[in-house]
């Protein structure tokens, strides 16, 4: 066994996985990674199950040192500068830290959360099938709290497997898509339009429990108290002051404010990765579109192993080549499913 030691780390960094399911009826929140696709990508790079436990690193920098042997890791999510002793490490790729080497990650250059997956995954004691940290409930393993410098993980010694990179689908852009409801009838048409047509920013006081939205005040039709009912990841509730809050992974399992809309599954990670202060909009979609996107999102996660590439291959941007009308017959020669070619030897 090797050890991975947290040499330095900022706030809002913790062990997260696919979350804790089955006990919301007892008030136990799901928790888990804020950006599940990036968690799955990092895990896939080191051969783990997509939702295995990994380190969710908040917007600040962090560094990790291998001890008692080599440790193989991978990073995906919010882009940042990363290096080992000055030699750069690419996002969406795996790398092996030799005994004593330190991987240093800078501030997130966009987005908020970067995932560091460790080959063999983080080990600990599961509660309701999860190691995810839920600090409020004292849950999470091996540390039931955000990470601190000096924390360490006992991990598998690096396998020596070939280093890989992962070719992720082009991130969606445009408005964050929502389904109206469950309590959109607590708002009149003018206020629903105000919600959908205004620009929003995420407040700096946001956290894993909820993202507070800055924009116009949304008014309720019948006041802001409803009888508490269940919440989901992405519920957008509107409290008395009219400033909506998008409930995130550490949300309370029930809430007593009207919920005007719900972020679709495929876009929750995008919302999670929207930096504080960045302007964005919402767009209402139909149930059919939202469920279709949810199925595609699940399919993308299932397809991640097919997106792995040897780290010494070169990517050609086929679309750009096509646009420039220079690719010609070469397009048919590459893997049509993935648009990748391997560098000439």
């Amino acid at each position, binding site marked *: 066994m090797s050890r991975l030691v947290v040499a330095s780390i900022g706030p809002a960094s913790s062990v997260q996985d696919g979350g804790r399911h089955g006990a919301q009826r*007892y*008030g*136990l929140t799901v928790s888990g990674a804020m950006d599940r696709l990036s968690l799955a990508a990092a895990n896939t790079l080191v051969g783990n199950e997509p939702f295995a436990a990994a380190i969710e690193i908040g917007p600040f920098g962090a560094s990790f040192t291998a001890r008692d042997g080599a440790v193989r890791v991978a990073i995906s999510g919010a882009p940042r500068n990363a290096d080992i002793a000055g030699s750069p490490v690419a996002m969406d790729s795996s790398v092996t830290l030799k005994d004593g080497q330190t991987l240093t990650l800078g501030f997130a250059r966009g987005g908020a959360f970067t995932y560091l997956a460790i080959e063999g995954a983080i080990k600990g004691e599961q509660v309701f099938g999860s190691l995810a940290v839920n600090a409020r409930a004292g849950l999470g393993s091996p540390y039931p709290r955000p990470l601190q410098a000096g924390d360490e993980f006992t991990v598998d010694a690096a396998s020596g497997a070939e280093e890989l990179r992962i070719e992720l689908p082009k991130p969606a852009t445009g408005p964050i898509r929502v389904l109206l409801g469950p309590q959109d009838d607590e708002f009149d048409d003018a206020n629903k339009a105000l919600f959908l047509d205004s620009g929003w920013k995420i407040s700096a006081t946001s956290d894993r429990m909820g993202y507070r939205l800055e924009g116009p005040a949304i008014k309720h039709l019948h006041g802001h108290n409803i009888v508490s*009912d*269940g919440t989901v990841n992405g519920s957008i509730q509107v409290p008395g002051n009219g400033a909506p809050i998008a409930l995130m992974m550490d949300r*309370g399992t029930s809430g007593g404010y009207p919920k005007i809309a719900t972020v679709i599954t495929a876009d929750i990670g995008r919302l999670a990765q929207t930096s504080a202060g960045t302007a964005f909009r919402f767009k209402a979609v139909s*149930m059919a579109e939202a469920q279709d996107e949810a199925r595609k999102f699940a399919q993308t996660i299932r397809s991640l192993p097919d997106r792995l590439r040897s780290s010494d291959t070169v990517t050609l941007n086929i679309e750009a080549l096509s646009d420039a009308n220079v690719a010609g017959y070469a397009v048919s020669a590459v893997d049509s499913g993935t648009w990748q070619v391997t560098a000439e030897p």
Partner: protein
Amino acid sequence: MAATLPPPRLLPSGDSAVTVEFSRTIDDDANQRVLALDKALAAAPIDGITETVPTYRSLLIHYDPGKIGFDALGEKILPIATRPLPPVTKARRWRVPVAYGGEHGIDLEDVAKTLGTTPDDIVIRHSGGDYKVAMIGFTPGWSYLSGLDKFLHMSRRQSPRLLTPSGTISIGGIQAGIQCLAAPSGWHLLGRTPVRTYQLHRNPTFLTEPGDRVTFYAIDHKTFEDMDRAAEAGEIVAEQVDA
């Protein structure tokens, strides 16, 4: 054949959950229908449902849209949700010890003053109630109880407290509660129980279930200390009796 009940509203909670809403208000009949639907779905699971969360007035059903769509799920749920309620079966009843007043119930005297009576009267009325766990939510084990004596109905505090102790026994509006973990709360604190409705390494981890009956009885502060130590060591300390 018995007539069916009026259909609940099926409210989309995103693409992977539906809120089956029986009432907009706190209503014991609606809560019975919530718990009956929850029970029926547990007894005869529908493929694609991943988790159910009962609340006062609605059942939140999480599902996998890769296995079943919104409309198809609704078509399966409605006939079950409109079935006449089954006869009331025997529920579990928990007798929960409470140290009222003093440091454990800092609002007891104020509540008595506001309602124009004595702290002893508040204790008699609160511990004399016959409660039902209507839902569990907010934080692990927080049991929301229906059945609070009408005399004790009073609005919540103007400004919620940022932290209230573990085991807090409180009232708010028309509800009573057993709180497990320390948490923010705007309710009035009457006392504390040594009972842990949620304890990680105990079997069962969660003591109460929606539908359970609850009664309270007063204990002195010395007994609280003894029971609290036993509870910390993993004893349940609430007494279970058949309703």
